[in-house]
């Protein structure tokens, strides 16, 4: 290979590539910044919606699992008692039980035996 050809080749290679080494694109930096800002806004929206959803879920959980206070429990019990008619039924049913106790406990077969015995 001729040395002068080689050096010309090297020089031309460097020059040809060097001329294409840098390409200034007008407005390129602005476009990059715009894209970055859009992505940042989108990320913020996603972050906030995620935060709001989590907060809402927490509130619902707290509301559902909240333990009632003692005073509230007493009030609820009293209300239940006031609307409950089972006590009145109990009274009636209890009386019925008492009446059944008073009924004679005589077996039918025993009564027949007494009436048919020769000494009666």
């Amino acid at each position, binding site marked *: *290979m001729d040395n002068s050809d080689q050096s*010309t080749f090297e020089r031309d290679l460097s020059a040809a590539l060097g001329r294409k080494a840098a390409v200034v694109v007008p407005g*390129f930096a602005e476009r990059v910044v715009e894209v970055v800002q859009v992505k940042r806004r989108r990320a913020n929206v996603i972050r906030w919606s995620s935060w709001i959803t989590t907060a809402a879920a927490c509130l619902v959980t707290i509301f559902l699992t909240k333990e009632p206070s003692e005073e509230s429990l007493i009030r609820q019990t009293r209300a239940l008692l006031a609307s409950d008619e089972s006590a009145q039924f109990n009274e009636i049913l209890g009386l019925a039980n008492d009446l059944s106790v008073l009924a004679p406990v005589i077996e039918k077969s025993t009564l027949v035996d007494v009436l048919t015995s020769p000494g009666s």
Partner: protein
Amino acid sequence: MSQDEPLLPDDVEDKRLMLLVAGGDDDALRLLVNRHHPRLVGYLRGEVGSLATAEELAMEVFIRLHRAANRWRPEAKLSTYLIHIARNLVLNEWRRRGRKPTTALDSTPEPGDHSQTSARRLNELDEAFQRAIAQLPPEQRTAILLLVQQELAYEDIAEIMDAPVSSVKTWIHRARARLRELLKDFYGPA
């Protein structure tokens, strides 16, 4: 990305801007892009052949840089780091296309103060070189572009290409030989 080299003033300025970018400063990002996009787009155009694709990829490089600003190591040279990201994107682009970019490159005449004849001669030569470079195997093309066009050191090229320096030297040697062969009409047989 040689970590032993002292930081040059440009590198110090890059480091300062990157810290600002990591803090969400868009003006710093704008400055950084203006400083680095011409060489990055030039390199990418050499790789993919199309200016439009080169711009798209360069845009993605800067978006990734912005995303990684907090993790960027200040001791690394930013220009090398950018080309490292760009090289990975080029590899992805080739995989996506399912073929290597061996088509003819965009030929945009560069502005200059040459006479019309010498300008035509320069354009012919440029186009011949661009076509020849587009025909190189990918590793050879990347290596020769990074060495001759971007003027990077062998060690930096090796780091960008995730390869030993010896492989880089081999690729460059083969690239030169192949280019001589492809351009034998201009320079005679190798």
